[in-house]
């Protein structure tokens, strides 16, 4: 008979003192309580909605909208259903967010780099810009751009005309190719400007506001990223005789990206959410269409659920893309 080398199994403690049992039981109990509370709230919601005759229904989405949109990338008219209108609003939001992200990133990167410039004036200008823009609420800035700046532009023949570009109260017009690859600049037809490229003042005001505002925050993120690169890297590059711009581009920025990207992520997400301020300057974004829809249908809960879902998905998508990008620039451990 061989003697077991293993220590004799300790007698199992009673279940209420068993480390393998109690944590499970506690978790299961807490989980159950949460489930019951959620079930109670949802049940109550459904019961009260039923009592108020407002039980969730999505059939209205297929009914004709009956309202027009001032501008839409997706063709839309009043005879099309609500879902098409909401989709057109979403596309308009994506348009503003897409252009906004590109513009804010460019502006922010340039400003962030400028704050390390060897030129003192440029450095100070960047600092002043960031401090001024960052500390004024975005809504005020949007209202300023739209009502004060863009609505003060002249119209018709008095519009500001530059080669290939015209800035008027009715919109911004740019030269471009028309059908048949025929280059066409902005021109007046019956006192109204026509051009291949046209941006409404509402869209331009929103885009300007979003880019100027988010750009200031991104500048700080970029500045922080650059500052995180050890000074030795600058000195090493300088001792090789590299210009500061080359140093920044070739040596510092690639390393700074690892710090910048996570910070950019949150700025991008706030830009996407801030785009809903479009309603203050009359731009037809998702929120604006949803508000009209809500008022026409009275389907408050459904419309809000759709809105919440749309912005949540948009932000999660941006986040996922940025996390993917983050993975690409991190140091690979070999």
């Amino acid at each position, binding site marked *: 008979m061989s003697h077991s080398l293993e220590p004799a199994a300790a007698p199992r403690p009673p279940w209420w003192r068993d480390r393998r049992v109690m944590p499970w039981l506690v978790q299961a109990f807490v989980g159950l309580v949460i489930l019951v509370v959620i079930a109670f*709230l949802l049940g*109550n919601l459904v019961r009260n909605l039923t009592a108020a005759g407002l039980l969730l229904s999505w059939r209205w989405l297929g009914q004709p909208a009956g309202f027009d949109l001032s501008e839409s990338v997706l063709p839309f008219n009043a005879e099309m259903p609500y879902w098409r209108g909401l989709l057109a609003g979403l596309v308009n939001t994506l348009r503003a967010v897409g252009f906004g992200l590109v513009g804010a990133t460019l502006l922010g990167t340039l400003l962030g780099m400028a704050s390390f410039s060897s030129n003192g004036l440029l450095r100070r200008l960047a600092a002043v810009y960031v401090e001024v823009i960052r500390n004024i609420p975005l809504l005020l800035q949007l209202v300023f751009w739209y009502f004060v700046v863009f609505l003060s532009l002249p119209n018709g023949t008095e519009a500001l005309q530059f080669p290939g570009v015209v800035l008027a109260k009715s919109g911004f017009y740019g030269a471009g190719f028309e059908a048949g690859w025929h280059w066409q600049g902005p021109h007046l037809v019956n006192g109204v400007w026509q051009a291949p490229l046209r941006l409404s003042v509402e869209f331009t005001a929103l885009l300007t506001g979003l880019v100027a505002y988010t750009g200031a925050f991104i500048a700080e993120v970029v500045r922080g990223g650059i500052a995180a690169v050890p000074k030795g890297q600058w000195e090493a590059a300088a001792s090789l005789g590299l210009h500061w711009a080359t140093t920044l581009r070739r040596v510092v920025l690639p390393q700074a990206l690892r710090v910048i990207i996570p910070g950019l992520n949150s700025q991008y997400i706030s830009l996407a959410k801030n785009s809903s301020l479009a*309603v*203050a300057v*009359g731009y037809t974004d998702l929120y604006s269409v949803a508000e009209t829809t809500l*008022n026409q249908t009275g389907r408050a809960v459904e419309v809000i659920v759709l809105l919440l879902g749309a912005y949540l998905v948009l932000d999660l998508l941006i986040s996922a893309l940025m996390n993917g990008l983050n993975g690409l620039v991190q140091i690979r451990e070999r």
Partner: protein
Amino acid sequence: MVLMAPLNRLLLAAPLLLALVLGGCASEDGGNGVQSEKLNTIRSRGKLLCGVDGKLPGFSFVESDGRYSGLDVDICKAVAAAVVDDPGKIEYRNLNSSERFAALASGEIDLLSRNTTETLSRDSAGGNGLSFAPTTFFDGQGVMVPVASGVKSLKDLAGKPICVESGTTTELNLADRMREIKAAYTPLKFQTGDQTYTAYLGGRCVAVTSDRSQLAAKRTSFPDPKAHELLPEVLSKEPLTPATVNADPAWADAVRWTIFSLFQAEELGITKANIAAKLAEAKAKPNLADLRRFLGVEGDFGKQLGLPPDFVVKAVSAVGNYGEIFERNVGATSKLKLERGLNRQWSEGGLIYSPPFR
């Protein structure tokens, strides 16, 4: 309020959601007499929560001394006088067109008296589920343009930008009328009236459309009112009507008959100035049965509505009859100088008509 992000505005609907999520069942009807949860709530609170626009001269406007005035405000005062016996015990909530129904549904206000058009979808249980009181102002949608623009009719607006407040019936009517005359146009929608009129005055739109009374009211606050004119076309019927929620019929009745009493008082020639004399007369002469019932000297009309017996006396003493309210706020003696038009008594060819107090 200006600094509030629109998404935060959604939170306005949050009380509605929360009320629906957390709200219990309606209390059981107990005892005899009129049971209205709302009436009891207002009485125990000691004041009426009234939803108004707050920025519309003649209808609801904050005067330079901080007090509210206007036709919509006077309706709030009459109801407050009838329910809590004091026209001053009101808490006003300024609401924009998009907020108003959520505020009413969530119970944030008791009464919506905010130039709101009565429509089928707003009234029906399957729509907004409101309960409309008698119409206090019969209006129509109009279009205002700068005189200098040379626009003379709706057709001239084809292809032009038009400013409109979002979430209003005017937005839909505009779409319908322009589709009828097959004219393409650009609707520029803004969330508040202030933004809408600022964009119009800034020259972004060739025209602004709203209820004709509202256009006339807003025009009085323009830098140069004479530079703007209303087009002759009336785009729609806009019966502006106070509303309560559908769920409490007794409260809706109390509001409805308080407003009818203002109509009836005008018909009977009872004014703020002579109501005390009329009351004394009614008390002295038992043969004036109609007057005695109307003023609560005999019968139990007040009790039937869950109101004090003399609710008519309280309401008329507070704000006068409907004719006085109209003249004071929007009529010939006011800045707006609106004609009474459809808002005359039925006996003079108008639409103001009270069912009998019987």
